[in-house]
């Protein structure tokens, strides 16, 4: 606790970089997963290949992906962009299948009703299908958010500064307070992000609670 009392400013700075390195890829990955998931749902034959390809991407261990990124992107070895892109790859890998499954969970008769009311194409996707798929997609987003926060701490080994630095520094200098602060702050950040997604999902799906309020 003494350690935290005298270093809380550093912890907050590192937590903000951690949030950036985990949060930006979450948004980027989600945006990219929507068209992929839509394709997998629209053309059922493409579903297995989307699931297999993204599954294989998710297979690559994080430290390996961080180190390989400069080869693919042509960036510097210590560039934080490597981490952002690698984390976006993981997020797309997790969410493409979730979006496809979420869209597939929307009953046929609802799609037909929406079509009959004049919804079509993009408008039907964003106005009807995605909102109804929200609970399934949110479950996937929560998994992605929590695992992103946890994985990002590994990026300290390739020089991207965030809460993982506390783990490495605490270990190297045998400062237990710093090491434990690093672990607890990472868990706390994951829980906060998770709670934000739960709250956000409640906001965009008011109909799920419409009957329960009475």
């Amino acid at each position, binding site marked *: 606790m003494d350690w935290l009392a005298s270093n809380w400013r550093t912890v907050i700075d590192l937590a903000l970089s951690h949030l950036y390195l985990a949060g930006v890829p979450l948004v980027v990955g989600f945006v990219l997963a929507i068209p992929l998931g839509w394709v997998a749902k629209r053309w059922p034959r493409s579903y297995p290949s989307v699931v297999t390809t993204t599954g294989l991407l998710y*297979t690559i261990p994080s430290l390996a992906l961080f180190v390989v990124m400069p080869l693919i992107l042509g960036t510097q070895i210590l560039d934080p962009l490597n981490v952002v892109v690698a984390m976006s790859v993981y997020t797309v890998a997790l969410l493409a299948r979730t979006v496809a499954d979420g869209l597939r969970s929307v009953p046929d008769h609802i799609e037909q009703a929406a079509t009959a009311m004049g919804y079509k194409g993009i408008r039907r996707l964003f106005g009807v299908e995605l909102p109804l798929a929200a609970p399934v997609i949110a479950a996937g987003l929560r998994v992605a958010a929590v695992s992103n926060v946890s994985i990002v701490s*590994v990026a300290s*080994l390739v020089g991207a500064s965030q809460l993982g630095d506390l783990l490495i520094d605490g270990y190297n200098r045998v400062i237990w307070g710093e090491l434990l602060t690093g672990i607890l702050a*990472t868990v706390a950040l994951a829980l906060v992000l998770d709670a934000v997604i739960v709250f956000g999902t409640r906001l965009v799906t008011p109909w799920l609670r419409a009957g329960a309020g009475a």
Partner: protein
Amino acid sequence: MIGSILAWFTDPAHWSGEDGVPHRLFQHLWYTGATLLVAALVAIPLGLWIGHTGRARWLVSAANAVRAVPTLGLLLAASLWLGPHLQGDLAYVVPSIGVLAILAVPPLLAGTYAGIEAVDPAARDAAKGVGMSGRQVLWQVEVPNALPLVMSGVRSATLQVVATATIAAYPGLGGLGRFIIDGQAYGEYRTAAAGALLVAALAVALEGLLALVQRRVVSPGLRGAVGGSRNDDDADPAEMDPAAEPVDVRAHA
């Protein structure tokens, strides 16, 4: 850059001895196999028991909550805590192997539990109806039906261990992660990149191998549930989607 990495791979010095690719690969596989075996001996019987009896479900959620803990933090804390009490190589190996085994438990437990839980109640009732005992229902009906999800758990756990063993090179474990950590430490990017490519190839190869094993051990009667609907009717996607359930067996490090 690609050329210098190719040159690394073709240099015979990197293929022999303590720090050669074959020995590091062997270590990595050994750690992975040993920790998975230990974790499976704990997690699979426990998952079968929880799924079969419906008791102590909180254990599954508790195990899942471990996902939020950074694996690097667990590895470093265990090494710092146990290291000084152990001699020689054991100071690096024991804490890391312990953490690897602990991290393999949640996906195995979640997969086994979710697999048993997801067995069609009608199949279970029918088995009881024809006079099967509790044990027979478990081994002849529930386990075979649960195999696809049990295998997803095994695949997740394997990837988790391969990935975490790589990171464990930082507190001193052997394996392919050594190339990455040592390459970074000495500023030799090509060594680190070669190690990263080897780790990625190993992970993808193991995933492919386990997918083949799964295809062999899972009853053909269950396969339709994975590829899509059987009669072209609207199969309920929630039925075949582990991600839609509160238990998600995917894990990563």
